[in-house]
Every structure is written in structure tokens, then in C-alpha cells.
């Protein structure tokens, strides 16, 4: 895999399915342009080419990471912390996409270097619009130094 892609980190299969549906229906991202991690461990293994992803070309980084916060094993804030602590992944854009509107989560995400914080809308119509917009913006429009690497 050497073409651009996004990393979607979310433990809720419904959310993953709904988001992928929106991406493909809106024509923003094809199925094979979305890499899914079911929790923090999988996400970190993928990013640093360890564990089940050992041997992956680690220099290939996603254009954006959509990151859920509350997940089993390693949570989203920890993933964010490790991402920002490593030279290789320091500049990868991270969009926190969560159901939480706790002040603590919001503040801590930005403190750890999140590029954006989006609360998943309850209403599915709004949710679809938001996800479509996010994909279009971060994958199509936004430019980062990471992809040149």
C-alpha cells in the first residue's frame, strides 16, 4: 500500500461501518483508502509497524488519523501522547472524533497536540454531513508535510 490513506481508530463497529458508508457514498474515500484499527494497541502497532503489523513499511503514514477516545486496552489520549512523542509521527494530523463532550477530554486532547476535536453528532443526518465534511477536508483539501516523506 503506497497510495494515500487515512487511519480510522474506533472500537465501535457500527460507527466504523456508518463512517465508511458515508465516505464511499460521498465519494471522498474508497474502502481501501481507509485503514481501521479497533483499539489503541492496533493503532500503535500499525503506525510503528510492530506486533501484527511488523514488517510494514513504517515510513508510509496516514494523511490523517481519526481517533476515538474511549477504547479498550490503550485509549485515544494515550495513542495521541505516543504519536506526538515520536519523531516519525509527530506531525501526523490527528482529529479526535468522540461521543464525549467532557471538558476534560477536550482540553486534554488539545494539550496533547490534537489538530481538531469533533463531537460525534447524535443525529444521523448531522453525523453523515460531519463525517463527509471531515473526510473531504482532511483527506482532499488539507496539506501536511507528512505525505512528502
Amino acid at each position, binding site marked *: 500500500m503506497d497510495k494515500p490513506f487515512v487511519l480510522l481508530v474506533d472500537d*465501535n463497529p*457500527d460507527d466504523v461501518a456508518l463512517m465508511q458508508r458515508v465516505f464511499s457514498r460521498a465519494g471522498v474515500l474508497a474502502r481501501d483508502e481507509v485503514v481501521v484499527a479497533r483499539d489503541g494497541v492496533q493503532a500503535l502497532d500499525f503506525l510503528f509497524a510492530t506486533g501484527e503489523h511488523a514488517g510494514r513499511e513504517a515510513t508510509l503514514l496516514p494523511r490523517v488519523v481519526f481517533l476515538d477516545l474511549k477504547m479498550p486496552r490503550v485509549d485515544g489520549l494515550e495513542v495521541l501522547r505516543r504519536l506526538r512523542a515520536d519523531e516519525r509521527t509527530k506531525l501526523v494530523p490527528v482529529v479526535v472524533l*468522540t*461521543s*464525549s463532550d*467532557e471538558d476534560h477530554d477536550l482540553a486534554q486532547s488539545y494539550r496533547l497536540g490534537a489538530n481538531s476535536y469533533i463531537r460525534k453528532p*447524535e*443525529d*444521523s443526518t448531522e453525523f*453523515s454531513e460531519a463525517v463527509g465534511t471531515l473526510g473531504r477536508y482532511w483527506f482532499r483539501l488539507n496539506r501536511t508535510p507528512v505525505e512528502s516523506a
Partner: protein
Amino acid sequence: MTAYPERMGARPLHWLLSLPIPIKVNLVVAIFVLIIVALISIGYGGMELLSGVRAYVGGEGLWSKSQKQALYSLTKYARSRDEADYQSYLHAIAVPLGDKKARLELVKQDPEYGIVYRGFGEGRNHPDDHWIMSRLFKWFIDVQYFRRAVTIWTEADEVISEMLARGDELRTGIVTASITAPRIEQILVEVEAIDKRLTRLEDDFSFTLGEAARWAKGLLTKVMLAAAVAFVALGTVLGLMISKHLRTELAALGDGAVRVAAGDLDHRIPVASRDEVGRLTETFNAMTANLAASRGEIRKLNAELEQRVIERTAQLEAANKELEAFSYSVSHDLRAPLRGIDGFSLALLEEYSEKLDETGQHYLRRVRAGSRHMAQLIEDLLNLSRVSRSEIHRVRVDLTALARAIATELQRTQPDRRVTFVIADGLVTEADPGLLRAMLENLFGNSWKFTRKHAEARIELGASDRGGERAYFVRDDGAGFDMAYADKLFRPFQRLHTMEDFEGTGIGLATVQRIVLRHGGRVWGEAAIEGGATFYFVL
């Protein structure tokens, strides 16, 4: 009873210092009165003494004059042989004899003063002097000068006896005409000699009395000086002692009071005496001890209270943590399935609507409506829980500006509604701005909702004086409610309208009440069915 340290115990004169203060002052006064009485007594005694000496000097004068008169009369009688001259002699010689009689009685162990006074009377001494002359004789006979004077007097009396013998011889000789002229001449020569001896004795007597008077004067002066010095010294020493003692006691009391006032409740003032100051000091010490005990009690209670506060705070923190964890999990875990339900319902409607008939599509829309209501409930519950947990930061809040902003926002959501907002100017209060906004949003939101069925509505924010308190109010002319259910208004999930009439979760007013309570205030509502509602709150 409390034992006082440093009691200045058994000291000489302690009894004196223990006397009450008025008695101490009286004592000093008494000493000075005593000085005056003593000096007057000594002065009077001295005057009496000197008066006695003067009486003796006078007596001696009379004695000498009479003796000379006797000599003269006797000599004359020897020449004239006239009986009158002899009588004159007898008359004169009676004076020394009278004095002698008094002297002889006085030297007795227990003299009879009638005889003494009679003797002095015959000596032609003034009756007023008789008493002091007798006293002086008895009291001072052992004094050198007086003893010598009495010795001279005794000697003179013996010489007088010789003269008497010559007188008797002459008288007998003349009366019986048995005396010869040469014998008369010889007697006169002898009497002349006797007179010379007497003159010498009289001089000695006068001189000795003079000595005695000077001695008495010296003695009196010394006694008076000594007494004056002694009493004045005693009075001064006592006065100084008492005043120094009082000063020390009062200074100790003053210093002690200053220390106690500065908070040193363990300080005890030494009790130096049993007088008023001493008793005051003891009372002060007892008071200090009571204060110390009370302070100890208060500190103990405070410590217990603090401990209780620490425990309660810990419990509260634990409860808050639990609530926080609960809210966190609610906001993540309860919302996710709802998104699934709503999301897949939407997917069905969007992608499979041609395979569903109208009823099937209706059901799906009901599913979506249900999940949205559920999402709203979760949202409201989380808000309520956040209101309970968040810390209050009171600052100055412009209620008028806040209300106008909320009104504008409401108007924007439904631009075709005709609602008049009447918001009083200059409403400013001290409150947490975030919580106050949430509260006002709820109240205005309710008014906005419950006036929906009226073509024209009015929503008001103002302030009024309610029983001395400044109460703010939000008033509308909407559906109102039945006051019979007013007690249910602020309970979570309690609704006074059906979902068909007005949608809602029943958490809004519970949140309003929670916010007001967190500010230490009160909130209440007044309404009538279709008569509008007014909510008052005091912050």
C-alpha cells in the same frame, strides 16, 4: 482550686502587706497621728518638768529671802529686845522650816502628800506648784543633779537648826534677863558665820538647779528628736514599703494582663499578698485559667470539626469521582448504540426505501424519533450532572446582556414566531457565568416552548424586592401550569404536560434548581393554567 506558683510566702511583715489597702493607709496615718500625740506628750511633760525646776528655783528664792529676813530680825531683836522683832524672826524662819517638813516627808518610802503640801505651803510656795514639786522630787531623786540639790538642801536645813538654837538661846536669855552682853555679841558673830555658810549653800543650790534645768532641757530635746526621728522613720518606711508593694503588685498584674491579652493564657501572675490587689490577681488568674480551658475546648472542637470536614470532603470527592466516571461512561457508551440505531435507520431509509412500504418507512422514522429523544435525555442528564460537579467561580455577570443574547438566539431558531422580549436594563449580579447562562437558557427556553401555541407572546426578565431580598424573575404569558402540582416542578423527569402538547425531558427545571442551590439561593414558580408562568430566583 488552682494552685498559684511563686507565691511570695512567709516574709517578715507579711501580715502587714496582707492587710486590706484602706487599713494600710489608715495605719500610716495612725503612725503620723501617734507622732503628734507623742511630741505633744513629751512637750507637755517637758514643760511640767521645767515648770517644776522653776518652782524649786522660786522656792529657793523665798527660802533665801526668808533666811536673810530671819537673820536680820534676830540681829535686830538682839539690839532692841523688842518682842515684835522676835515675832518677825519666827515668821521668817517658818519658811525654811516648812520646806524642811516637806522634804523630810518626801524622803520617806510612802510619803503622806497632805503633810508635804502643807510643808510647801508653809514655805510660801504657790499651791499650783505643790504637786509638780513633789513629783519632781520623787521621780528625779536618783538623777545626779537633783540628788546634789537635795543634799545641799539637807545641809542647809542643818545649818538652819544651828541658827534656831542661837535664836532660842537669845530669846530665853532676853526673856529671863539671864544673858550677858558679851554672850549676845558672841551669838551675833556666830549667826553672822552661819549666814555666810548658808549664803554659800544657797548659791550651790541655785547653781545645781540651773545644772538640772539645763540637763532636763538637753534630755527633753534628745527625747523629742529621737521620738520624732523614730516615728517619722517608721511611718516613712511603712509608707514606702506599702506603696512599693502595691506598685509591684499592680505592675505584675498589669504586665500579666498584657501577656494574657496577647494570648498567653498559660501565664499566671504571682500572688504577693492577700489584700484587694492580691484577691484581684487571684480572680484574674482564675479567669485566665477558665479562658485557657475554654480555648482548649474550642481548639479540640475545632480539630474534631476539621477532621469531620476532611472526612466529609473525602467522601464528597469520592462521590464526585464516581459521578464523573458514571457521566463519562454514559456519554461514551450510551450514545454509541443510539448512533447505530439512528444511523442504520437512516441507511435503510436512504438505500432501501423502495423495498419498504409507507408503513415500514413510518416505523423507521418512529425509530429515529425515539433514538433522538433518548439522545436528548442523555444530553440533559449529563448537563444536570455537570451542573452538580462543576466548581463555582463567582464573578460579576451582566444578566441583561446575557438574557438579550439568549433571546436573539431563540428568535433565530424560529424567525416567524412573534414573541416580545421585555428585558430590564442594568441587571447585574455575582454568579458563575457558565451556570447562570445554562439556567437562563433553560428558563427562557421553557417560556419560548410554552408560549408556542399563542399567536403573540411576551417573555419578561426583571427584578423585584421580595421580603427584603432581590429576586429576579422570568415571566411569560404561555400555557402556565396547575399550582396543585407546583411541588413536582423541580424534580427530574417530572413533567406537567404531555409529550403531544409540549416535548421535553423534564430535566430543565431540575437543572435550574440545582444551579440556584449551588449559588446558595432559592427558586420558585407561580402560575395558572393558560395564565402564564413566573419563575423567581434569588442568588
